[in-house]
């Protein structure tokens, strides 16, 4: 059968041009097996299929050891899948690139660079002139609430401030997708709440695609358009929940909202916390 008027590149993919334009990330039957000692192997991810739309805030939620971070690293190009393929704007992901900006739980700042030096780093790498990179970075530093700390070194900052720097550093080189790996996992509850609010404010301004890994149900529901619930090892997608709550979201209102509460309770029920509940991955 002939399919006229269809560009060749799209023939046979089963994706219409409308769908393709919206799909930013496509994870097609990805599995990941880790070799462990004694010729055994550990299946971390099994047959993951997921599409992330352009501009969507998607959280991956699951118990520790469900491979949710591994999935994020595969999209980042830091880890190669054992089977299947991850695509970014239709092209197979073969390695890291500035179109996908990671933010890690461990901050991973460059300790020999000041706050400004860290935020500027990616821009300078992309050949942006120093004065221009500096101006843009100063603006970002102000946006994440660190005005006045431009010339501090990372070790002089608190955990929350470090993560603000890390977020600014990644936003600076304008990735199409933010890959956030339990970014607030190492912070105390109060700081965590403040950073969630600030992240949401920043995100609601430019609606970048975000893939957000967390083990906190409240955090996932509060931030996301879509929550992907995963099962324990081997990591499989158990359910994908669309979070239909109006934006901009205000925490104080949301906490009293019965829809929000129902999402939290429902999703908590989906997670098989299993026998052990030992910390986070």
């Amino acid at each position, binding site marked *: 059968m002939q399919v006229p008027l269809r560009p060749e590149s799209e023939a046979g993919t089963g994706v219409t041009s409308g769908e393709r334009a919206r799909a930013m990330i496509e994870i097609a039957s990805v599995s990941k097996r880790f070799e462990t000692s004694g010729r055994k192997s550990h299946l971390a991810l099994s047959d993951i299929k997921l599409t992330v739309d352009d501009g969507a805030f998607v959280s991956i939620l699951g118990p520790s050891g469900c491979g949710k971070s591994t999935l994020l690293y595969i999209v980042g190009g*830091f880890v190669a899948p054992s089977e299947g393929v991850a695509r970014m704007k239709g092209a197979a992901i073969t390695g*890291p690139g*500035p179109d996908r900006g990671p933010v*890690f739980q*461990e901050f*991973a700042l*460059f*300790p020999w*660079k000041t706050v400004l030096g860290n935020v500027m780093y990616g821009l300078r790498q992309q050949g942006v002139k120093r004065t221009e990179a500096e101006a843009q970075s100063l603006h970002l530093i102000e946006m994440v609430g660190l005005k006045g700390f431009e010339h501090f070194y990372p*070790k002089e900052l608190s955990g929350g401030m470090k993560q603000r720097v890390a977020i600014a550093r990644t936003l600076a080189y304008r990735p199409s997708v933010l890959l956030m790996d339990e970014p607030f996992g190492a912070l105390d509850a109060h700081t965590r709440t403040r950073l969630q609010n600030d992240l949401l404010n920043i995100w609601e301004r430019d609606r970048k695609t975000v893939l957000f890994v967390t083990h906190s149900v409240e955090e996932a529901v509060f931030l996301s358009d879509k929550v992907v619930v995963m099962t324990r090892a081997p990591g499989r997608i158990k359910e994908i929940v669309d979070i239909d709550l109006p934006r901009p979201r205000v925490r104080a209102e949301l906490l009293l909202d019965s829809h929000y509460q129902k999402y939290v309770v429902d999703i908590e029920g989906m997670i098989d916390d299993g026998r052990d509940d030992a910390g986070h991955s």
Partner: protein
Amino acid sequence: MTSARSIVVKLSPLLACLGLLAVWQVAALWLDTESFPTAWHALQTVPQVLGDPEQLLNILDSIRRMVIGFSLAVVISIPLGLAMGRSARVSAFFNPLLMMIYPVPKAALMPIIMLWLGVGDASKTLVIFLGVSLPVIYHSFQGAKAVEEKMLWSGAAMGLSGLQRMIRIVLPAALPEILTGCRTGLVLALITMVTSEMIARQSGAGNILFNAMDMAQYDTVFAMIIIIGALGIVLDAAFDKLRWRLVKWAEPHQEILLGAS
């Protein structure tokens, strides 16, 4: 911190030196043997040794060899150590080799090296090079191995290539550890410098020292010990200042305040 206390902190190395000299003085007076001159006598001999052009040239020769040996070792050992720290293959190749060389006193190789390269500069510089290399390789290796994976990933996401990550992330991140190795290397350079000249008795500070020993010129012997010791202290202090400037971002907060005061 009161200023009086900070003055004491700053002067403490000097006070320690003076204390040591005082103990030496008392011990020498008490023992009263010819082979143990007093501190005061040895100190008086220092300007005599340094004032003699031939002796001074000898000492400068030593320093030149030490600087060349140390610099070569650092330039070669840092990249090697970093490569070993980041690549399992490079490490698997060099590790057994280095483990064999490690316990051998480098001065013990001196006779063989002299056989090949003669008693001149080349063999002495080579021994210094060997003495400095191992701690610098080891610390560079440890430093590179400890670099956080996520830091490298962050760099990769910004578009840094493998080599760029090595030079612009692994090197600065490992720098505090590398410089610790270099500091150890500097002291070892001084030690191997003296021992190499003690074995190949042709020129240098070690040569003066052991010639004086043979001729029972004990005040010259002790003056040379003071000179070599002072050289070590000055080099170490200068290097530590340089190290502090390069890696003040890694020092605990309090030390920065202390250093800035």
